């Protein structure tokens, strides 16, 4: 077990290094000027500013400098928010994104998995069709449609919840964004759970159990849930990483000060240290999430354990 962990760790470091390198050169290949501003900057001033950020040095030197900064754990100053350390921005945005991501995931799991199970158990019945149609609505109505509808109704008409904003200590500001974000994921989850459950339900051991007279609900929960969740779990890992770092639309519609908007703004203004930093965070999350997913997969499917 220790050996597996160690090899996975070494792989992860290599992945992060490659990710850093590719992202650095990709962003530098992007069209547009670094430090572009709406008012033209006179050449002599631009040259000075570039020198401030070390942008006058050869690209490889810049790469080495940035890499050094990151290894030391300090990505340096943001180009967009001048004079502000990237780390300060991340420190504010990341917890918000985590709160939003986790609440949304709770919404998604508590709707998606039960709905998928019930639909699978009552295959081709009215409940199945109905819950799947509801699930599809979550995909048909994207966040930029659902979000404004929820905000308009609960925020403005009822005045029960704030129409926008996010306060760490006030959970009622989390409700609308988390529901909006969670619904789409709930839709995917319920569909995948249903498919996985049906797949398992058709396995031979289920027939055996049925033949033995084990009650339906027990078959479902005791015997099938584990196997049936495999596709959903494979989806949850990456989805969670994505939910934390890239819920751009929800963050915009509800004015949530999270990582997604910082990332888009960084890309629009070619704020290289910020792009790199968010990418590395995202990369770490993806690696972690996929690792956890693999572990969970092994747990759900005992036969895999010997090979994992």
């Amino acid at each position, binding site marked *: 077990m220790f050996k597996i962990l160690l090899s996975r760790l070494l792989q992860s470091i290599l992945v992060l290094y490659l990710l850093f390198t590719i992202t650095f050169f990709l962003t530098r290949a992007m*069209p*547009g*000027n*670094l430090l*572009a*501003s*709406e*008012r*033209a*900057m*006179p050449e*002599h*001033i*631009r040259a*000075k*500013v570039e020198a*401030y950020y070390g942008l006058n040095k050869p690209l490889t030197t810049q790469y080495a400098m940035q890499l050094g900064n990151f290894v030391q754990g300090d990505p340096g*100053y943001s180009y*967009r*928010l*001048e*004079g*502000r350390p990237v780390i300060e*921005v991340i420190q*504010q*945005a990341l917890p918000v994104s985590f709160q939003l991501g986790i609440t949304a995931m709770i919404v998604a799991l508590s709707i998606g998995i039960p709905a998928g199970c019930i639909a699978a158990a009552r295959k081709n019945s009215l409940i199945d069709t109905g819950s799947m149609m509801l699930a599809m609505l979550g995909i048909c109505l994207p966040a930029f449609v659902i979000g*404004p509808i929820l*905000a*308009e109704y609960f*925020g*403005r008409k009822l*005045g*029960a*919840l*704030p*129409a*926008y*904003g*996010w306060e760490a200590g006030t959970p*009622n500001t989390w409700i609308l964004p988390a529901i909006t974000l969670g619904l789409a994921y709930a839709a995917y989850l319920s569909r995948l759970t249903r498919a996985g459950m049906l797949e398992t339900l058709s396995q031979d051991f289920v027939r055996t159990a049925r033949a033995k007279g084990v009650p339906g609900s027990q078959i479902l929960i005791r015997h099938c849930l584990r196997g049936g969740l495999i596709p959903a779990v494979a989806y949850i890992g990456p989805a969670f990483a994505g939910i934390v770092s890239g819920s751009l639309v929800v963050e*915009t*519609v*509800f*004015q949530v*000060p*999270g990582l997604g*908007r*910082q990332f888009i703004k960084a*890309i*629009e*203004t*070619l704020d290289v240290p910020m792009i790199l930093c968010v990418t590395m965070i995202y990369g770490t999350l993806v690696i972690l999430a996929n690792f956890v997913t693999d572990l969970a997969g092994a747990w759900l499917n005992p036969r895999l354990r010997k090979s994992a």
Partner: protein
Amino acid sequence: MTRCTLLLLPALLCLASCQRETQVEKANREKIFIVGNANDPKALDPHLVTGVIEHNIIRALLEGLVAEDPESDTGYPPGAATSWEHNADFTEWTFHLRPDGKWSDGAPLTSADFDFAYHRLLHPDLAGPYAEMLYFIKNAEAFNKGEITDWSQVGVATPDDYTLKITMREPVPFLLGMTRHYTWFPVPRHVILRFGKMTDRFTKWSEAGNYVGNGPFVLKEWRFNDKVETVKNPLYWNAAHVKLNGVRFVPVENFYTETRGFLAGQLHTTYQLPPPLVEKIRAEHPEFLRQEPYLATDFIRTNITRPVLDNPKVRMAMSLAIDRKQLCDNILQGNTPCGTITPDLGDYHPDQIVSFDPERAKALLAEAGYPGGKGVPRFKILMSSTGSRATIEALQAMWKDTLGILVDPQPKDWGSYVTAQQKLDYDIALAAWTGDYLDPSTFLLMWTKGNGNNNTGWSNEEFERLLSEAAHQSDEKQRLEFFKKAERILIEEQPILPISYRGRNYLLRPEVKGWHKLLLDNHPWAEISLEP
């Protein structure tokens, strides 16, 4: 089941009652003014920024020589200076600072702080992006470009602690208005030097807790993408007159979100009302709607180094084919059609030179050798990716129907959009310009040869001669006459196709008092009160 309902009911009631007081009502009680400000500031150091968003906040934290008049763009109430005088040809200005002026940490505000501020912004090592705003000062440009290194040669002098003498390079009758821009504000020398050298770009002096200002409010907190919170400055010279306890700037980027929040009672005023909602608000909430002119112009840049576009007749034909009234009535609600670039400002009333004339447009295009658009290549119209898709689509249709000229949109992210224009790597581009002060020069000087904001490849000797005549003219009437002539040359050659004067549609709650219609839109925060 009934039990469950009985338990739920008080919970729901509690939820409802907790929310009964909206954020705005709470703020009214606490005298906090909540302002929608569209975006995060790039920085709060006035020497590192160029934008309007930043201006709104910095105006609360720092105050220039002259204060803002709540009711008029051309009123000049005393600010950090109590009085001032100038010589006959507006080339030498003397400001007398207020002897009781203080920074928010109690340190006295002296003329040295102004001298330090101008020195810092113009210093080549700081590389302030908007140093050119100070180029009106004698030798300032040479100092900024490193041609001279002796600061004493620049036209800023401090005969004593409370006198500031500024020598200009040319007559500047509009200086008072300019001193209300943050590039002319003082900065706290003692604080900046405590955190680093004068020319250090990134020091901690402009962070909350360290920021020291001389404005009516002090910086309390800046949470990125969330809010900038300011509180009343008790040491402000006119603190007794300031009615608010604080101003909160909320960077709501999406204007639909902002409007929704306003109607749900989360903001006192918004940055912009999306055009599709104007009619609805007018019908349902006329008490909130404000539609006011604003010192900005939408126009189209053309790259006159490109074939076909190098022909002024083609440019004029394209300009004449734009039905500006239709655009303003239907898409750019709140804007007014314009036939030139400079808006009506102060005593300057420009001639409206072009207007919609499809017949003449067709004739001109034929005259240029492209009847019915035959032989004109498909142009690309550069736009920022967040720009107005509807405007582009309407222009596409107008040019196609009237002239047979086809254009394709070329949306680019902001950085590439700006760069493409600066490198003349575009055909035509949707653009806008916001004036910085009330003088036609803020709209005209940029069209000179080599100016970093020209970006059309156009230049004209007669145009530049007229501008320099204007610059050396101390008679105000004569001066404006020269600008008028210069502007006519610019517009008749059409390197830029004017579209509309910007109007600002926004929402304002009726309890906000002391907020009046202003072209520059710089409502002095110190004069505002909340009276529900």
